[in-house]
C-alpha cells in the first residue's frame, strides 16, 4: 500500500522573524466557497457603515483674522503653507500642521481680493481693492521658524499702483508672469512695475482669472457681464468668450486634463467645460443651494472642492453630477474661498466668520502611518464598497448625509421647483405640435452665446 504523506520544505514554512505571519495555503476552488457573494455583500455593507462611523472630516479651525476671509493661496512648493487674505487688508501665512500663523504681510489699505504664489513658492503676489499689486518674499519655512510668532511681519518686495481696483490674481505655472483681474485682464512680470500686456474685451470688469497649470500660456477669466473668456498669451489676444445666463464667480482648470475647466456659477451649479467645445458643458454639477463662490481642483484632477454662499463646502467628482461629500459646521458662515492641498488629502475653506477650516478630503480616512496590512484592508473595503455601491442598502448608507435644516429645506424646495418646471415643459410639449418644442439639456440651457 502506498501512503501519501504531506511533504513540505522547511525553507518555505520557516518564518524569518517571529512577527511574520504563518504561511497559509488556501484552496481557491470556487466550488468550496459558494457564499462568497453574500459574504462580500455583507462586507460592503459593513464597510459603508464603518465609513459613516469613522467620518470625522473636520480637523480644526485656524483663527486669527479679524475680518472675513476673501481669498487664499497655497504654496505650490511647500505643503504646510497656506496664505489667506482678508477683507481688512491682512494677509497671513499659516502652518497647516500646527494650525498657527507663521507670519503676516501688512500693507494693503483695502480688502485683499487676490492672492497667489509663484511656482517655486518664493514670491507671493497679492492685490486688492486699494488698486495695488504687492509682491512679497515668502519666508523660507524651517522648523525653528514656526516657533516664534511675535514679530514676523514682512515688508513687500514691490508695490505697483495701478489704475483700477483688482478682483483677483493668478500666477502662471512655472513662469514669471501673473495675471490680475480688474477692469481688464493685465499680465504682469515679476520685474516690471507695469503690466506687460493687457486684454480687454468688453467693458465689464473681470472678476476672476485663472491660469491653466498644464498649458501655462492659456488663461481663463470670468467677467461681471456673465461671460467666461479664454485668453492665449502666445497670440497676445483673447480667444473666445462664452456668455451664460448667470455670473461665474470662479474658475478652476483641471490640472491633469489641460483642456477641461470648471466654472463655479452664481446659479448654484458648477459647469465643466472643454475649452475646445464651449457650446455645451461637459457636465453640470448640481447640489449647492446658493451661489458657488469658489472652486479648486484636487491635484489629482479627479475631484474638486467648492465653497458656497449656503455655508457648505462640497466635494464633487470631476465627472459626477452630484457631490460626493458635504462639509458644514454650526459656526461656519458663507464660504468665500476653498483650496485643495497639494497632496490632495486635505481641503481648506475660508469663510465669513474669519476662520480658515481644515478638512479631510476623505471624511473617514485614517490619518497617520498605515501598516501594509491595514492599508490592504482599507483598500479591500473600499473596493468591495465600490463594487456593491449600486445595491440599494449600500447606496442608501453611502449617500446619506445629515444636513442642517435650512440647507435641507432649500434643497427640497429647489427640487420641487425644478420638478415643476420639468413637468410644465413636458405638458407644454405634449400639448403642442410634435417637434415644435424641443427641450434643451441642462448642459446647454444655461449658455446664451458663444462669442467669437
Amino acid at each position: 500500500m502506498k501512503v501519501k504523506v504531506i511533504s513540505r520544505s522547511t525553507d518555505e514554512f520557516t518564518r524569518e522573524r517571529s512577527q511574520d505571519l504563518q504561511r497559509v495555503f488556501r484552496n481557491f476552488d470556487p466550488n468550496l466557497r459558494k457564499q462568497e457573494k453574500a459574504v462580500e455583500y455583507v462586507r460592503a455593507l459593513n464597510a459603508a457603515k464603518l465609513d459613516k462611523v469613522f467620518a470625522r472630516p473636520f480637523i480644526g479651525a485656524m483663527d486669527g483674522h479679524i475680518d472675513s476671509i476673501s481669498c487664499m493661496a497655497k504654496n505650490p512648493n511647500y505643503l504646510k503653507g497656506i496664505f489667506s487674505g482678508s477683507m481688512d487688508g491682512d494677509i497671513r501665512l499659516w502652518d497647516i500642521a500646527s494650525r498657527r500663523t507663521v507670519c503676516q504681510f501688512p500693507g494693503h489699505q483695502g480688502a485683499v481680493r487676490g492672492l497667489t504664489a509663484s511656482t517655486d513658492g518664493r514670491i507671493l503676489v497679492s492685490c486688492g481693492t486699494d488698486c495695488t499689486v504687492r509682491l512679497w518674499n515668502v519666508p523660507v519655512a524651517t522648523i525653528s521658524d514656526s516657533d516664534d510668532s511675535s514679530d514676523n511681519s514682512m515688508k513687500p518686495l514691490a508695490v505697483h499702483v495701478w489704475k483700477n481696483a483688482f478682483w483677483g490674481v493668478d500666477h502662471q505655472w512655472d513662469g514669471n508672469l501673473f495675471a490680475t483681474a480688474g477692469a481688464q485682464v493685465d499680465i504682469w512680470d515679476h520685474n516690471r512695475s507695469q503690466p506687460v500686456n493687457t486684454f480687454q474685451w468688453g467693458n465689464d470688469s473681470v472678476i476672476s482669472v485663472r491660469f491653466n497649470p498644464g498649458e501655462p500660456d492659456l488663461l481663463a477669466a470670468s467677467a461681471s457681464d456673465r461671460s467666461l473668456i479664454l485668453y492665449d498669451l502666445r497670440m497676445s489676444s483673447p480667444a473666445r468668450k462664452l456668455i451664460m445666463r448667470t455670473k461665474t464667480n470662479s474658475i478652476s482648470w483641471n490640472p491633469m486634463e489641460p483642456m477641461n475647466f470648471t466654472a463655479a456659477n452664481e446659479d448654484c451649479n458648477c459647469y465643466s467645460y472643454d475649452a475646445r467645445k464651449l457650446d455645451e458643458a461637459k457636465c453640470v454639477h448640481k447640489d449647492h443651494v446658493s451661489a458657488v463662490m469658489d472652486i479648486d481642483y484636487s491635484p489629482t484632477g479627479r475631484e474638486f472642492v467648492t465653497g458656497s454662499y449656503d455655508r457648505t463646502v462640497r466635494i464633487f467628482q470631476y465627472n459626477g453630477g452630484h457631490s460626493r461629500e458635504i462639509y458644514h459646521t454650526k459656526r461656519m458662515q458663507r464660504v468665500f474661498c476653498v483650496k485643495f492641498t497639494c497632496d490632495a488629502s486635505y481641503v481648506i475653506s475660508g469663510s465669513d466668520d474669519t476662520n480658515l477650516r481644515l478638512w479631510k478630503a476623505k471624511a473617514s480616512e485614517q490619518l497617520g502611518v498605515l501598516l501594509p496590512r491595514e492599508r490592504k484592508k482599507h483598500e479591500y473595503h473600499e473596493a468591495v464598497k465600490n463594487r456593491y455601491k449600486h445595491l440599494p442598502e449600500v447606496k442608501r448608507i453611502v449617500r446619506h448625509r445629515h444636513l442642517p435644516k435650512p440647507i435641507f429645506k432649500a434643497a427640497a424646495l429647489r427640487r420641487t421647483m425644478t420638478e415643476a418646471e420639468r413637468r410644465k415643459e413636458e405638458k407644454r410639449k405634449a400639448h403642442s405640435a410634435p417637434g415644435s418644442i424641443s427641450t434643451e439639456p441642462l448642459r446647454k440651457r444655461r449658455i446664451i452665446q458663444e462669442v467669437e
Partner: protein
Amino acid sequence: MAEKKRKSKEESGGGRLQKKRKNSKPKTLKKRTGPRLPSKLRKELDLVNPNPLKGGGDEEINSDEGELLANNLYEYEEAAPEEESKKNRRFDSVENFEYELPEDFKDENIASDDDDIEGEDEENNRSENSSHLGDEVEEEDDGRHMRMLQGITGMPSEAFEGKKRKNNVVVSEAYPESEYNPSRDVLEGNGRISIQDLLDPLHGKSGYSKLRKRMHQVERKSMSVHAPLPKADREKLERKVAYEQSKKDITKWEPLVKKNREAPTVYFDEDVDLGFSTVGAIASEFEPRTDFEKKIASLVHDDKVLEAHRQDGSRLLELNKISVEDVKERHNRIAKMRSLLFNHEMKAKRIKKIKSKTYHRLLKKDRLKTASAEIQMDPEAAKELAMKQEFKRAEERLTLKHKNSSKWAKRILKRGLDVQDEGTRAAITEQLHQHALLTRKMHSMKDISSDESSDDDDFDENSAGSDEDGASKLLAKAKEKTLEVLEEEDKIPDSGVLSLPFMVRGLKKRKEAAYEEGKLAINEFEASLKQMELGSGAENLKETASSGRRVFGTVKKQIQEFSNKDAHYNNSDSEDEFKVKENIEAANDQNNNLPKHVDIDAGLLREESEIGQDPIFKSFDDIVRDPGPKTTHEVAMFASGSWKKMKSENEANGNIIKPPKSVEPPRHNKDQGEVGGDSDTDDEGQMVDGTLSSGMKATYELPSQAELIRRAFAGDDVEEDFEKDKEEILKGENPEPEKPVLLPGWGQWTHVQQKKGLPSWMLEEHEIAKKKREEALKKRKDAHLKHVIVSEKLDKKAEKLHTKTLPFPYTSKEVFEQSIRMPIGPEFNPAVVLGALNRPEVVKKAGVIIKPIKYKDVNPHEGVEEHGQGGKKQNTKKSKGVGGKTIKKTNNLKR
C-alpha cells in the same frame, strides 16, 4: 490744391515738434524733404525768390525749390519722427506702418529713390528739370549715405539695400475716391508715364544698373495691400485665429489624458525623495542631546583622536592608555561580584541537596506562616491562595488521589485494615478525610444529576427488557396514548389568551395537522401490531408490503410503462394475482430497495419503542417523501392535463411560478393511498386492485395512456385541489377583509345599534375593502391564468440584493452582473492578484506634492497592452461619466 491745404495744415500742426527735433539728429535721415516752414515765412520766401514755374502753382516744386533755399537758409533737414527712428522700442513698428504711412506717404512726397511710385514719377516727369535735379541730388545723397554705412559696418551695399527694399511696397489709396480725395490723375489730368521713361535719362549714371534691376524685381512681383479692415472685424479675426491655435495646441494632450482616464489606477506617489538613507548619512546628521551623548561626542570628536584617526592610527594606541589604578579597581570589582555569585550558587545547591524531612517540614511551615501573614496583609495573595485551593480540589476530583486508589492504599486494604497498626489506619482515615474535604463541593453538585440518571436507567432497563411481547404491548400503549392525545386536543380552551380568535384559528390549524399525523401514527401502530401478530413467519409478506408501500411511486410508473404487458397478469381480482405481481415488482426493486427498507424498518421499530410522537412522525414523513418525488411530480403535471400549457405559460411569464404547489395535490393523493395501504394489507391490495381492475377492463380495448391515467386518478380531483390551493394563496397574499363584528356600544349608540344592527359606516368600509381586494385580485398576473399561481409575495430580503434599475455606466444587465461576479476578497483570491483587484483608482501618498500634468508623447495605440494588465476593472471604468464621452468623441475625430 487739396494737397497744399493738407500740407499746410500739417505744417502748422507739427511745426513745433519738428523744430524741437531739429538739433537732435540732423544727419540720420532716411528721407529728406523740404523744411516745414510756417506759411508766413514761406510767403516771404516766395516774395524774395519768385519761382519761374510758379504759374503751374504746384506746391511740390515750390517745396523742392524751397529745399534748396532752405538748405542755404537754415541748414535744416527734417528729422525722422521718433516712431520711425525706432530709437527706443516703445512704438510698435507694425502699427505705425499701418496707421500712419498712408497719410504720410500721400502728403509728403518722400523723395528717396526707393519710393518709385507712379504718382511721384508722374510728378517728376512733369517737372522734369527740377526733378532731375532733385533726383540727382538724392541719388548722390543716397550714394553718400550708402558709402558711409559701408564704411561703418564693412558690409557690402547690397546688405543695406535689402533693408530699404522693405518699404518698397505699392500702397494704394487709403480712402476711396471722392471729391474730397481725388486721385492724382484727376488732379493733373495727365496720361501715365512708365518707369522706363523715368529711367532712361538716368542711363549711364552711377546707380543706374542697380536701380534698373530693382525696378525689374518690383515689376515682377508687385503686390497691393488692401485697405485694413475695421478694427472690430480685425480683432474678431485675430481672436478666431488665436482660439483655433490654442485649440490645436490643447488637443495634443488628448492621448495623454485619455490614457490616464482609462488607466485602472493613476499613481501619484512615484517619485518620493527620501533623502539620504544610508547609515553614514543618518549618522552624520546625529546631534548629541543628552548629557551622556554629549560626553561621548566630546570624547569621539576630540581633536587628538580625530588627528590620530587621520594619521596612521598608531597614536590611537597611545591615547588608549588607562591608568593602573583604574584597571585594578575594575578588576577588584568584577572579582567581588563573581565571588558573591558563586557563593549564592553554592548555597542554593546545598539547600537543594538536604533530604531531612524535619528540615523541609520546618521550611514548609515557615513558608506557610509567611503565606498566611501575607494573606492577611493583602487581598491579592488571598486570591491566589484561593485559586490554588480550587485547583487542588479540581485535581483531586480528577485524579481521586486520596480515595484509596494509590498503590499503597490498595495494598493495605487488600491486607485488611484491621491488621494494620494504628499509624497506618490513621493515615488511611486521614487520607479519606482529605478526599472528603477536597471533594465536598463536588458531591453537593452531583446530587441532582444522579437522580436523572437513575430515571434513565429505569427506562433503559425497560427498553432493554423488551422482547416481542413487550413490543406489542408497547405499541398498544403508544396507540392508546396517541388517541388520548388526539382526544385531548379536541378540547378548546375557552378563556385566556388562547381564546382569542386568531389564536383559535392558529390552534385549529395546528390541530388539524397534528390530527392527521396522529392518524397516520395510529395506522402505523396498527399495521405494525398486525405484523407482530403475523409473527416473524410472515416476514416475507411484511417485506413485500413494506416494499410495496415504499416504492409506491415507482410502482405506479411501472404500471404505466408495462400496462400492456401487465394486462394478462390482471385477469382476476384475487389476492394471489396481486401477490404474484407484487413479488415480481419486488424482485425488480429488491436489489435497490431491500437493504434500505430493512434498515428503515429497524429504525422504525427502535423509534416506535419510544413514546415521543414527533420523532416518529418525522421519520415517517421522511419515509413517505423518500420515494423519488420527481416521478410523482411529473405524473401530477401530466395528470392535471395542462402540462404543456403550463410550460408555455412558464416561458411566457418568466415569473416565479411555484412548482411545489402543483406538486402538493399528488402528494396528498399519495398520502391517502399510503394511509390506505398502511391500515392493513388487505386494504392496500384492494386499493391497488381497484386501479388494476380498471386497467384489466381495458385490456380488451387497449386504452390510451391518457385514458389510463385519467382512470387511475378518477377518484381524486387534482384540478379542484389546485384551485383550492390557489384560493388559499390568494387569501394569504390578499387577505379577505374581516367581517364587521358588532361590539355593543362601539360605533353607535347602543339603542340605535340594537334597532339597526351594524352601523352603516362599518358595512361601507367592509364593502370598500372587499372591492379593493377584488381589484387587487384582478390585477394579479395569474388572474386569467387558470392553472398557474404567480406568487406576488415579495421576498424583502432578496429584494435588497437587486438594483431597481441598471446602474449608470453599464449598458446591459449581463455586463453589470459580470462585473460583480467574481469575488475580490483575500479568502477567494491568491495574494498575488489581490493587490491588483483591490487597487483604488487613485494611488497617492499623504505629504507628497502632486504637480500638474507634464506633456509627454503617448502613443495612442499603446494602451492596448495595458488593458490586458488592468483586467476586468478596466471595462467598468471605461465608459464612466464624462470620460467615456470624450473618449468616444476623440475616436470619432481620429476616424
